[in-house]
């Protein structure tokens, strides 16, 4: 156990933090039946992936003295842009679903189900 914590740096802690956030988002997306909360769970998972980008950018900047930090930052920026587009389209779909079915429970949206 001591050996386990001896080489546990901030990178490990940050990765554990993002893993915990990802699993919280997974639980939210799987457990809740409200479509908005499912979408927010997916957003939380995307944010956890972004944290990984930033943390690895910081780590790579520390190792290579600022060499590979830009890639992670650019990936995180584009990921935020795509996540914003996804949120807009998802919430528009939720509003359309509410208009058609008078509710946003995920179990009611089964018209395309085989």
């Amino acid at each position, binding site marked *: 156990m001591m050996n386990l914590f001896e*080489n546990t*740096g*901030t*990178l*490990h*802690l*940050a990765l*554990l*933090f993002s*893993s*915990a*956030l*990802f*699993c*919280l*988002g*997974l*639980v*939210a997306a*799987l*457990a809740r*039946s*409200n479509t*908005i*909360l499912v979408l*927010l769970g997916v*957003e*939380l998972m995307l*944010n956890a992936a*972004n*944290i990984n980008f*930033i*943390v690895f*950018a*910081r780590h790579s*900047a*520390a*190792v290579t*003295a*600022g060499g590979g*930090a*830009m890639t992670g*930052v*650019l990936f*995180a*920026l584009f990921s*935020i842009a*795509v*996540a*914003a*587009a996804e949120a*807009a*389209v998802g919430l*528009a*779909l*939720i*509003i359309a679903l*509410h*208009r058609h079915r008078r509710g*946003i429970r995920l179990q009611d949206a089964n018209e395309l189900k085989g």
Partner: protein
Amino acid sequence: MPDLSLLTFLAIALATLGACAAAVTRRNIIHSALLLVAGWAGIAACYLWAGAEFVAFAQILVYVGAVSMVVLFAVLLTRLGPGDTAPAPGAFRRAAAALLAGGACLGALAGAILTSPLGLPAAAARAPAATGAAAAADAAAAAAGAPAAVAAAAEPAIRVREIGLALMEPAGAAALLVTGVLLTVALIGAIVIASNDRRGADNSGEEAAS
């Protein structure tokens, strides 16, 4: 003695995880959305801690500012009666299965992270990183490199100028244009999907009636 940077990160991480866990378990969806906004702000603080200021402010602008407003408007537009918050019939079983899946995922990820030797290069490169950052930093960072702020000076701050230059390279400019087209198409598509199409609404009403 743990250094200040580690304690800061632990405080940010615990606050963010607490806000997100409370958001997942709350039954009132407005409370959930507001707690998730707090969690997004905590994630932005985590970016600030990691030295990526531009991404942190983009996170605050996009998530805490824009996406939260869109989510709150969606919540208000899809509001139902008081029976809306009643639990579904199989909710407990699904929650238990989701907790099992999430716990298994977390266990697998944590085991993989803790057994991988990721931290060793960072620990070995801590001293070169300080010198490299000091060599690459400008006068302001050098002035901040007082002995009391060694940890802050060792942070490899990525400046906005470098991000802009990287985005103006051919590959970065192409990615920027594609992202702009994607955002335009996605937002126009969102308007089309959510707009009140009178004819389509009538058709669906007839189908539901027949």
